[in-house]
């Protein structure tokens, strides 16, 4: 049999902005090569032209797909570390609330994409519909559905509106009940098991060697979470666990995400209960001192690393972003060796990659 070259994307229901170059022998994929760069905007270069405050919406759109609050948190952390700035307590809690709500929204989005890849259309509609409830909450808090620019240097922009806490708790209760339905509909579904169990097994040693981060790494059984290992903001005050998978296959990668939704609900309940009164923003000079700093945060898709070099002016000298999807993308060619062609979409969707932050 001769080897055929196959190109999938970018106009394809499964590959969002990617193009995959496959070497196919009959139905067996021998090699997969991702062609990235379809969403490259040059954010790292643009960040050098803008001031730190003007950079907020730009940096947010590194991963504005679902998880803007989590993405932004890392940028603010690195600036505040370089400035030696202590943010007001209430602002820290509000930041965590926004980030965790966003994590839930992101995981629900991932679940719906996953189910449409396996051909389960009902589970496309359910999580997206429940995600709207979370987006409503975020809209009430921040004024936008997807791109918030809510957290700013020295705090957050708006305080919690009246009645937000009660509404949020009500919706979280509903979502917790709803998760059981998801288990019945999707995770205990025989069809779903057949498509995802033992597909794309990522062994823990390989995952560590390749540098995979986030829920994909945890699904392989490695217990790593920046929120626990190196707590930022107020994560050290909350009582939550890190869910891990056993086999590291596509099924586990989705199950870990569902369990993380549960943990996020747990964190949100504690945050909404403990949130102190006080100011939400501190006045900050627009100039960041000379020096270097690196911070990492746990966004929905994994670990975001920010390396900032300041030259004592209003603009960053260099801002290097190390996004989670780029690190997880490396696992895709590794997993797509000697597998049937029909498994490629499942593995791709299970890694929950977003081309925006691969290319930046």
């Amino acid at each position: 049999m001769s080897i055929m070259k196959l190109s999938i994307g970018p106009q394809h229901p499964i590959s969002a902005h990617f193009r995959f170059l496959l070497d196919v022998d009959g139905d067996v994929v021998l090699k997969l090569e991702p062609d990235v760069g379809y969403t490259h905007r040059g954010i790292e270069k643009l960040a050098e032209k803008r001031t730190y405050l003007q950079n907020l919406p730009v940096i947010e759109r590194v991963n504005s797909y679902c998880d803007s609050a989590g993405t932004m948190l890392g940028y603010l952390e690195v600036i505040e570390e370089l400035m030696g700035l202590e943010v007001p307590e209430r602002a820290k809690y509000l930041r965590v609330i926004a980030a965790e709500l966003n994590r839930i929204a992101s995981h629900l989005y991932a679940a719906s994409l996953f189910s449409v890849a396996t051909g389960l259309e009902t589970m496309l509609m359910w999580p997206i519909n429940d995600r709207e409830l979370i987006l409503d909450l975020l809209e009430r808090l921040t004024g936008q559905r997807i791109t918030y620019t809510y957290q700013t240097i020295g705090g957050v922009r708006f305080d919690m509106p009246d009645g937000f806490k009660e509404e949020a708790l009500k919706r979280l209760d509903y979502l917790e009940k709803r998760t059981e339905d998801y288990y019945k509909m999707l995770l205990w579904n025989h069809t779903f098991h057949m498509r995802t169990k033992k597909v794309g097994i990522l062994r823990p040693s390989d995952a560590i060697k390749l540098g995979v981060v986030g829920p994909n790494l945890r699904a392989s059984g490695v217990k790593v979470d920046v929120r626990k290992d190196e707590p930022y903001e107020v994560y050290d005050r909350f009582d939550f666990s890190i869910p891990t998978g056993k086999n590291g296959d596509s099924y586990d990668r989705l199950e870990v995400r569902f369990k993380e939704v549960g943990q996020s609900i747990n964190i949100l309940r504690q945050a909404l209960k403990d949130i102190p009164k006080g100011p939400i923003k501190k006045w900050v000079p627009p100039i960041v001192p000379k020096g270097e700093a690196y911070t990492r945060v746990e966004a929905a898709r994994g670990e975001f690393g920010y390396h900032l070099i300041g030259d004592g002016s209003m603009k960053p000298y260099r801002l290097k972003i190390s996004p989670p999807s780029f690190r997880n993308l490396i696992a895709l060619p590794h997993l797509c060796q000697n597998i049937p062609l029909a498994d490629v979409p499942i593995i791709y969707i299970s890694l929950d990659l977003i081309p925006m932050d691969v290319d930046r």
Partner: protein
Amino acid sequence: MLQKAKDGLMDIKLFRRVMNWGKAWSLWSVHLETGCCGPEDMARACARFDTERFGTLPFPTLRECDLIFVTGFVTKKMAKRLKIVYEQMPEPKYVIAIGHCAISGGLWWDSYSVVQGVDEIIPVDVYVPGCPPRPEAWIQGIRMLQEKIAKEGMRKK
């Protein structure tokens, strides 16, 4: 009666009106995401906003589609593919530019790799501003396109 029906069919204006009605209410959209308005594309297609009420069904095969939503910014690398997709679609075809980035470059006005406005590459019928536009705004864009199609081939009053 028969004569009346025959006259009705021969009436080019009525014929066009029926054609336009058919075109306007079966705008199937091709699945091509170019920028970060993608999640709103999903939200507007799913249960809560449900643009299938207006005949806009997201469909994987571009040979059966009539509509492109240019969702957000278009990079120079993506621009070539966007043009190929547009050329492969059968007539009639319509384009809705979603978001500031697709309209004029938006936030990426000084970026070296982003096309400053998608109308440089393909003709655009309706512009929907926002970053990203709310699903209601998408629906308004679809409605505006339907009104535009309804006037196709008709004499101006």
